[in-house]
């Protein structure tokens, strides 16, 4: 099994770096996005769109720079992470640009705010910032283990990031924004990376104490308070803050992250049981006093109910999203030819997946979901290959968070679970999300480079000479 060779500390001396594979995949990823632009333009206006070359050139530049930096600073990195992220970011740009052309959304924006500003140029700019952050991570962070030093600083930073939005007004029912003049960021997206760093650093140190110095209680192993206490407090604090900010998606994400990392660190299945029990209790508890949650649960149970009874925005959005998916059918209507803009103001953010569903159909949805699945798979593989517990924990934490985020957003939009309001990584319009996810990919690339880098050749020993097998 290849996994076995990857986890041994002594790899082959000249392991292939796979940089040329990455280059080819990058060409493929950018090529698909450029073709998608052409397709939208031809479908809507009957001619190649004027923006196609601008966006195409932008993508080539971003992808090219990222690739060159990986080639130089992380030569043994996983060859798929970067192209997969580029493909999603490129497709996301096309989707946002396509929704910018929607007359329905333009009219709606003009009647609501008096003017319409397209989102695609902003998204391209944010993507550039995101790639710049990836480049910075790769250049500055020579070894991911350096992050271990900042365990407690991460803790403070995560809490500050989470508390900040409390002092800013709510947008669309959730206090998750920090606005500074014309810029607004969602600190939650960055907090998920930073809190993963804190969990990894803390758990790496305490994992033995957590796993072994525990009392057995009703078949479960309960660790000592002084070991578990600090992490429990931080986790509970972040969940509480998020609940008060009604940012349910992110609190779910943090909870999942916490349980996954604790389980991996201690190897105790009881944590899963614990986690499930606590999340069930938490969900019921929050649902009883939070009307925002109640309306979402009602809309999830019967997405079409509001057409006959009361009119609440949550239900109309979700039913429209579900009808978008249905109208796409197996092959979709084709780029630019659907009506997913009926969903309204969140069509290019939380609900961007329904445009994929309607215009690219079941085939396109499966492809996009599998691309997300592949990113998670490469992340888990990186965790398996990493040689140090900190790297393993950080890699599994980041890829687990990514997987949960994809599941919560896509599941919410498709009516599988109640809608919670997070963004689809890379696809959705939104600066914080794109920038943070590029940083996440940067860290994964860094860990995978360290994991796959061939170990230095062992010093020649005289014993080796003597025990050498001489083949005939």
């Amino acid at each position, binding site marked *: 099994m290849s996994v076995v060779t990857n986890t041994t500390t002594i790899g082959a001396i000249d392991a292939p770096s796979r940089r040329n594979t990455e280059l080819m995949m990058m060409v493929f990823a950018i090529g698909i996005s450029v073709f998608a632009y052409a397709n939208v333009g031809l479908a809507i206006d009957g001619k190649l769109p004027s923006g196609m070359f601008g966006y195409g050139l932008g993508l080539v530049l971003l992808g090219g720079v990222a690739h060159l930096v990986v080639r130089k600073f992380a030569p043994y990195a996983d060859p798929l992470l970067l192209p997969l992220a580029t493909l999603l970011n490129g497709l996301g740009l096309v989707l946002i640009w396509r929704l910018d052309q929607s007359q329905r959304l333009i009219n709606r924006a003009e009647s609501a705010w008096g003017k319409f500003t397209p989102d695609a140029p902003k998204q391209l700019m944010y993507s550039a910032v995101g790639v710049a952050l990836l480049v910075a991570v790769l250049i500055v962070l020579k070894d991911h283990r350096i992050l271990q030093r900042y365990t407690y600083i991460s803790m403070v930073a995560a809490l500050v990031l989470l508390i900040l939005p409390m002092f800013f007004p709510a947008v669309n029912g959730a206090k998750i924004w920090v606005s500074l003049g014309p810029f607004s960021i969602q600190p939650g997206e960055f907090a998920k990376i930073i809190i993963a760093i804190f969990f990894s650093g803390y758990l790496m140190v305490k994992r033995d104490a957590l796993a072994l110095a525990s009392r057995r209680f009703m078949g479960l192993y309960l660790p000592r308070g002084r070991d578990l206490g600090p992490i429990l407090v931080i986790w509970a604090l972040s969940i509480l803050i998020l609940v008060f900010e009604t940012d349910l998606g992110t609190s779910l994400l943090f909870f999942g992250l916490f349980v996954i990392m604790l389980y991996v660190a201690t190897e105790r299945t009881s944590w899963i049981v614990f986690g499930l029990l606590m999340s069930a209790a938490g969900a019921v508890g929050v649902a009883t006093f939070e009307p925002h949650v109640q309306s979402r649960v009602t809309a999830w149970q019967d997405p079409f109910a509001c057409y006959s009874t009361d009119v609440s925005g949550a239900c109309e959005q979700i039913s429209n999203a579900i009808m978008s998916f249905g109208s796409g059918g197996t092959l979709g209507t084709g780029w630019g030819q659907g009506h997913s803009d009926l969903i309204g103001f969140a069509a290019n953010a939380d609900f961007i997946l329904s445009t994929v569903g309607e215009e690219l159909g*079941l085939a396109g949805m499966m492809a996009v979901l599998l691309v997300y699945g592949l990113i998670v*798979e490469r992340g888990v593989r990186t965790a398996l290959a990493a040689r140090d517990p900190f790297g393993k924990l950080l890699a599994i934490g980041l890829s687990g968070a990514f997987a949960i985020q994809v599941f919560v957003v896509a599941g919410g939009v*498709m009516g599988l679970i109640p809608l919670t309001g997070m963004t689809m990584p890379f696809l959705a319009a939104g600066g914080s999300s794109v920038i943070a996810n590029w940083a996440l990919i940067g860290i994964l690339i860094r860990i995978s480079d360290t994991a796959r880098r061939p170990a230095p050749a062992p010093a020649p020993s005289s014993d080796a000479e003597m025990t050498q097998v001489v083949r005939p």
Partner: protein
Amino acid sequence: MNKPLRRISVFCGILILALLVRTNYLQYVRADELNTRDENRRVRIERYAHERGDIIVDGGKAVTGSKETKDSDFKFKRVWQDGPMWAPVTGYSSQAFDASQLEKLEDGILTGNDDQLFFDRTLSMFTGSKDKQGGNVVTTLNAAAQKAAFTGLGDKKGAVAALDPQTGAILALASTPSYDPSTFAGNSNKDSKAWQALQKDKDKPMLNRALRETYPPGSTFKVVTAAAALENGLYTDIDAKTDSPLPYRLPLTTGNLENEGNIPCENASLREALRMSCNTVFGKISDDLGNQKMIDEAAKFGFNKDVFTPVRATASIYPKDNRPQNAMAGIGQASNRATPLQMAMVASAVANDGKLMQPYMVAERQAPSLDVIYTHEKEQLSQPLSGENAQKLQEMMKTVVETGTGQNAKIPGVTVGGKTGTAQHGLNNSEKPYAWFISYAKTDSGSPVAVAVVVEDSKANRDDVSGGGLAAPIAKAVMKAVIDGKK
């Protein structure tokens, strides 16, 4: 740490798998259902994205059309010619308020999306005609008869249904007061106001009285009771005396069943009883036959079930009831309810020598290329009475028009048979009665038309309301229009 890592990877795999299963479920299993939901605005956008096909009368004249609009969602708007006159046939098709009747039922053909048009669509894909077009729906409606019915009703509240007894083709379907579907076909505030006003109107102009309103049929139902008497062998000779006392006491009660005026109904023959519209004679027949036999005969004429033309007509009701009520139902009162279409079916079955044909209004469906993709085959619904008995009943109905209560329906040179009705309604008969008339015309080549007319409410004095006076002239005009068209 690798064992939990592998488990976590399985968990992540399950998350992605759940999403894949869900998207398959939504986009493959439920796609058709979601795509055709009423809440799905795409259905409406698609309905008006191209020029809709037309609804055609008189075998070639379109009564509908499409007009280009500036609306961002809907490119075309539906328009109607003589909207109020044709509304009971076409229904409406509004960008904001959905569609009804033929416009809704035949939407697939009219938009060109129907599966029956698959071949045409594929063909036009290859021939390169880019603009999708809708097909046409050719109805059986006769424009002259429809006009006679609509102008005959005038400002009175009521309805007319006319059938071709030999085929079941619907020739006229009028309902007043009516509405113009063009006034709310669009998506503007003005359309919305017009719609609201129609919804609030006390006279219910959007109710299709010919198909969807049931009235007590009154004396016109005596035709059915007479048919039941003949079919069950209670009486065989229409000119022989019946066993009918005067006054006739309603069974199990102390009340008498009255006749209008002092007409000589005691032991009157069937022919005389129908001519003068004797309540006592037919009330007793209904009681003699019993509830079940009456229900059976009424059901053969089409009572007690929905009729699809293909637009649904409400089921007419001959009730299951006790003896006195059954006697009253036999003369079209009590809980007996009938739609105008139902009473036209009664007249047409008698005129067509006992065979009741399935009523229909869609003769053909045409593809956008004008190829006919569907033709209605005439179909017999039932045989409520034998040919012999039907001829006896025709004799009786002819007498009604020649020397009885229906003389206003006489047409020179044509044999006309009919029956009047003045149905009481309201508590203790407090409200204005409904004036009914059912009839058929007969020429050498059989009967080309059977009509039912009901006038619900008129400005006439209460005492002047009678089927012969109010409804018969309208029926006559409709029959004349059909016969003149044949010449």
